[in-house]
C-alpha cells in the first residue's frame, strides 16, 4: 500500500518535467512550470527549502489515511490518518503537488491547525491550509483560494434505524433532526435546500457529529460526498444538489496576497492535465456509486 502510494507520488513528481518544453512554448514571461514559479525571486516560504502545509488534527479519512509515522503528532485510527503517510486523497495530492513544485517528499512539512487558523489574519506558520475547504466568494474576501482540486457535493448519512432511511425528497427531510460538522458547507445544504422545521445540530468536528448520530440524537448527518462512503454510518441516504446551483469545490487557502498561490495553481493544472488528479481520486475516493439526488 505504502509502496504503491510512494510510487504514485514519484510518478506524479516526475510527470510534469516531461511537459516542460510544451508548456513553456505556450506562455510568455509567466513561469512555465510550478517548479520554475517557486524558484522565482519573491516567493516567500515559511521554512527555507520546504513546503509547509497546515491541516486539521485529527485528519479524517478518506482525505487522510495510513499509519502514524514516527514522531508525528497525528494519530491513526479506523477513521483518521496521518498526513505524512501519503495515503488518503489530500495527503497524496499534497505530495503530488509538492512534486510539481520541485519539493521531494522529505521537504513537505505538516502543521496541525484548528480550522480558524486557515483564515486568521496575520503571518502564518504554514504556507497554505488544506483541509477540505470549500470556496465561497465571502471566504475569498479574507484569504486567497487556489483553483479547485476536488469538486464536491454534500450527502446525507444515517443509521439503519433512522427515519431518514428511504427518504428521497428534500421535503421528506424537513421534520428530521439533522446534524453537520462546522466549517463545511453541509450546514448550508441543510438550511438552504432542506429548510428544516427542526433546528439542526452543528458540531465542532465530524467525530462529535458521529457520536450523536450513534446515540440517536440526530437522525442523519450531512457530510462531503466522499466522506459519506467511508463507513461512518450504515447508509448513504442521498446526495444534495449543489447549493445555489454552483458546483462546490475544495481549494487550498493562502494568506491574502501570497504569490505562492500562482505556483500552486500551475501545479494543480499540471496534475489535472496529466491525469494524476483523476487517478488519485479514483484511488482514494469512492465517487462513482449511484446515489440518488434529493429532489
Amino acid at each position, binding site marked *: 500500500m505504502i509502496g504503491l502510494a510512494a510510487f504514485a507520488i514519484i510518478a506524479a513528481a516526475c510527470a510534469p518535467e516531461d511537459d516542460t518544453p510544451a508548456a513553456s512554448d505556450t506562455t510568455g514571461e509567466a513561469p512555465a512550470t510550478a517548479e520554475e514559479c517557486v524558484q522565482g525571486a519573491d516567493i516567500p516560504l515559511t521554512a527555507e527549502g520546504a513546503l509547509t502545509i497546515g491541516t486539521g488534527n485529527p485528519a479524517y479519512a478518506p482525505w487522510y489515511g495510513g499509519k502514524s509515522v514516527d514522531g508525528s503528532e497525528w494519530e491513526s485510527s479506523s477513521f483518521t490518518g496521518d498526513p505524512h503517510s501519503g495515503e488518503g486523497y489530500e495527503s497524496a495530492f499534497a505530495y503530488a503537488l509538492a512534486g510539481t513544485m520541485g519539493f521531494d517528499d522529505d521537504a513537505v512539512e505538516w502543521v496541525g491547525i484548528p480550522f480558524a487558523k486557515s483564515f486568521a489574519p*496575520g503571518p502564518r506558520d504554514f504556507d497554505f491550509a488544506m483541509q477540505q475547504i470549500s470556496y465561497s466568494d465571502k471566504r475569498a474576501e479574507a484569504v486567497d483560494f487556489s483553483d479547485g482540486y476536488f469538486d464536491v457535493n454534500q450527502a446525507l448519512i444515517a443509521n439503519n434505524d433512522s427515519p431518514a432511511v428511504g427518504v428521497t425528497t428534500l421535503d421528506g427531510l424537513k421534520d428530521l433532526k439533522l446534524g453537520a460538522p462546522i466549517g463545511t458547507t453541509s450546514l448550508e445544504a441543510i438550511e438552504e435546500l432542506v429548510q428544516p422545521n427542526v433546528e439542526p445540530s452543528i458540531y465542532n468536528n465530524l467525530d462529535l457529529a458521529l457520536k*450523536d448520530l450513534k446515540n440517536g*440524537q440526530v437522525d442523519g448527518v450531512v457530510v462531503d460526498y466522499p466522506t459519506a462512503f467511508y463507513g461512518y454510518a450504515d447508509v448513504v441516504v442521498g446526495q444534495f444538489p449543489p447549493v445555489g446551483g454552483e458546483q462546490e469545490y475544495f481549494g487550498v487557502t493562502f494568506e*491574502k496576497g501570497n504569490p505562492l498561490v500562482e505556483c500552486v495553481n500551475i501545479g494543480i493544472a499540471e496534475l489535472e492535465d496529466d491525469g494524476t488528479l483523476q487517478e488519485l481520486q479514483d484511488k482514494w475516493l469512492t465517487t462513482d456509486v449511484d446515489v440518488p439526488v434529493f429532489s
Partner: protein
Amino acid sequence: MSYGGAGVPEIEPDLGPPEGSRRSRILGDRDGGRNVWVAVASTIVFFAVLITLIVNSPGWSAPGGVRDAFFNKELFLESLPKILDGFWLNVRIFLTAEILVLMFALVLAVMRGLPGPVFAPLRLLAVSYSILFRGVPTILVIFILGFGMPALELQGVPSSDVFWAIVALTLVYTAYVAEVYRAGIESVHPSQTAAARSLGLKRSQALRFVVLPQAVRRVLPPLLNDFIGLQKDSALIGALGVTEGLLQAQISSAANFNFTPYVSLALVFVVITIPQVLFVDWLIKRDKRRRQAGGVA
C-alpha cells in the same frame, strides 16, 4: 462625571470630617478642579496613543488584516441577530442553572457545616463533591455528561443536549458557590448563634433567621463573580452541538472566514454583565445604608 470643577461642595455633610478628609487625601483635591483636568487629559492622551498604536500597526489595515477580520461593520450587523438568537438559549440555560445552583449550593454548604460525628458521612460527601467538581474542567464535565449519559440508552434518562448542559453547569457551579456560602456562614461570629440559641431558637432556626441572612449579604460580590463565570461558561455547551451564541458565532465565522462574529458575541456578554454589576453594587449600598441607620444600638 460628578467630579467636574466644583470639587468640595459635593461631599455630603453627614459623612463627617474623617470621611471627608480621607476623600481629599485620595483624590488630592487641594487645588480644586485642576487635578481633575490633569486626570482627564492624561486619560485622553493614554487612549489616543493606544488607539494610534493599534490602528497604525502593519497588520491593522492590510487587506484581510485585523480591521477587516475582527471589526467588519457589515458582518457585525449581519451576524448580530443570529448570535442574539443563539444567545437567548444561553440566557435560558444559565438562568435555569443559576436558580438550581443557588438552592443546591446552600444545601451543600449547610451539609458541610453540620456538627457532630453522626453527620460525618454527609460532611465527607460534601467535601468530596466540592473537590471533584471544582477540580474537573467544566468543558470535560459537559463532554462526559453530554455524550456519555445519552449513550447509556437508559429508559427515562433524557437525551436532550440542553438538559445535560444545564446539569453539567449546575454540578460545577454548585461546588464553587457552596464554598462561597460556607465562607459567608463561617464569617458570622459564633456569638450570633449563641445569642439566638439563648433566646430559645432551635439550631435550624438560628441558622435560618440569624446566620444565613447575614452570611448571604456578605457574599453577594463573590456570588456575582460565580454567576458571571457561569454565564460565560454557558458558551461551552456549543461543544455538544447546541446552537447557542458561541457556536452560532463559530458558524458565521467559518462561513465568512472572519472573526467579527466573535467580537459581536463578546460585546453581548459584556452588555449583560453591566446591569448585574450595577444591581449588586446597589444591593450592597442599600444594605450598608440600612445597617448604618439602625445598627448603632
